[in-house]
């Protein structure tokens, strides 16, 4: 399995994400945002957390128009996998690859703590390491994680079973407690919490590890 982790100016979880993919058994290439193309044979693209372009204009808006992003969109349109975490989720919504948008947290505070997430009944390779309904503890660290979709889109996400994670105790005002959603083909996941920060015992928690292990196992079978 070959994973590419995109690096924007201001990305700061790129190394953590690369290590999480490596520990799950992937070969990892770091890809600078000015590169026009992904390396050959990339199976999954990771868009890391951080503050790409200083969050100028809107979180993720400038990164969504970086040269590499065109290649990421092509990769997804060809059926490739993509995982956007935190700022990466914001980038994916800005490109339109995932629905909705992330607004300023309802309490206006930057939130940095571990939260409980409920794994929803969502059929996607990213969740094969979990049981539906399972509650896991994963860190969040964001100022703009307040997920918004309108009522029609929310109904569609529910009907299509595309809500991957919800917050047990909604920290940021997200519509329907949503913490993560998948694309219609289930191969693109965007989430605000950081599973790569809970992937080995030294992190203080390992509940995120099953996502990477499960994903790589599924991709090997596919």
């Amino acid at each position: 399995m070959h994973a590419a982790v995109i690096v924007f100016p201001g990305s700061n979880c790129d190394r953590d994400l690369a290590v999480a993919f490596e520990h799950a058994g992937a070969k990892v290439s770091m890809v600078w945002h000015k590169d026009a193309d992904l390396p050959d044979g990339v199976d999954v693209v990771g868009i890391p957390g951080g503050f790409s372009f200083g969050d100028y204009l809107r979180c993720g808006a400038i990164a969504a128009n970086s040269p590499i992003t065109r290649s990421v969109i092509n990769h997804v349109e060809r059926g490739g996998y993509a995982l956007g975490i935190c700022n990466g989720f914001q980038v994916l919504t800005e490109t339109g690859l995932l629905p909705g948008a992330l607004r300023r947290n309802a309490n206006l505070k930057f939130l940095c703590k571990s939260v409980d997430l409920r794994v929803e009944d969502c059929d996607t390779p990213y969740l094969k390491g979990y049981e539906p309904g399972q509650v896991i503890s994963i860190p969040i660290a964001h100022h703009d994680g307040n997920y918004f979709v309108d009522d029609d889109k929310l109904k569609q996400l529910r009907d299509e079973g595309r809500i991957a994670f919800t917050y047990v105790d909604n920290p940021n005002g997200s519509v329907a407690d949503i913490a993560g959603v998948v694309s219609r083909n289930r191969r693109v996941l965007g989430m605000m919490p950081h599973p790569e920060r809970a992937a080995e015992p030294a992190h203080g928690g390992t509940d995120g590890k099953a996502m990477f292990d499960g994903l790589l196992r599924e991709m090997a079978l596919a």
Partner: protein
Amino acid sequence: MKAKVYVMLKQGVLDPQGEAVKHALGALGFDGVEGVRQGKVIELDLAPGTTEETVKEMCEKLLANTVIESYRIEI
């Protein structure tokens, strides 16, 4: 040639910053504030002949996120 783009959160989308400003004004003793919406103004310095249509395209592609924001162009 100059253009101004006003970007606001759409009606119906909660504006936590506007709400905070409203509360702060209330705390200062301004009782008459019934609502506050906070947005941004983007000033563009454009080459002569740039059309409003082009500015609209800029808004759609980058300056506003039309999922949650509306925009108004002044040329």
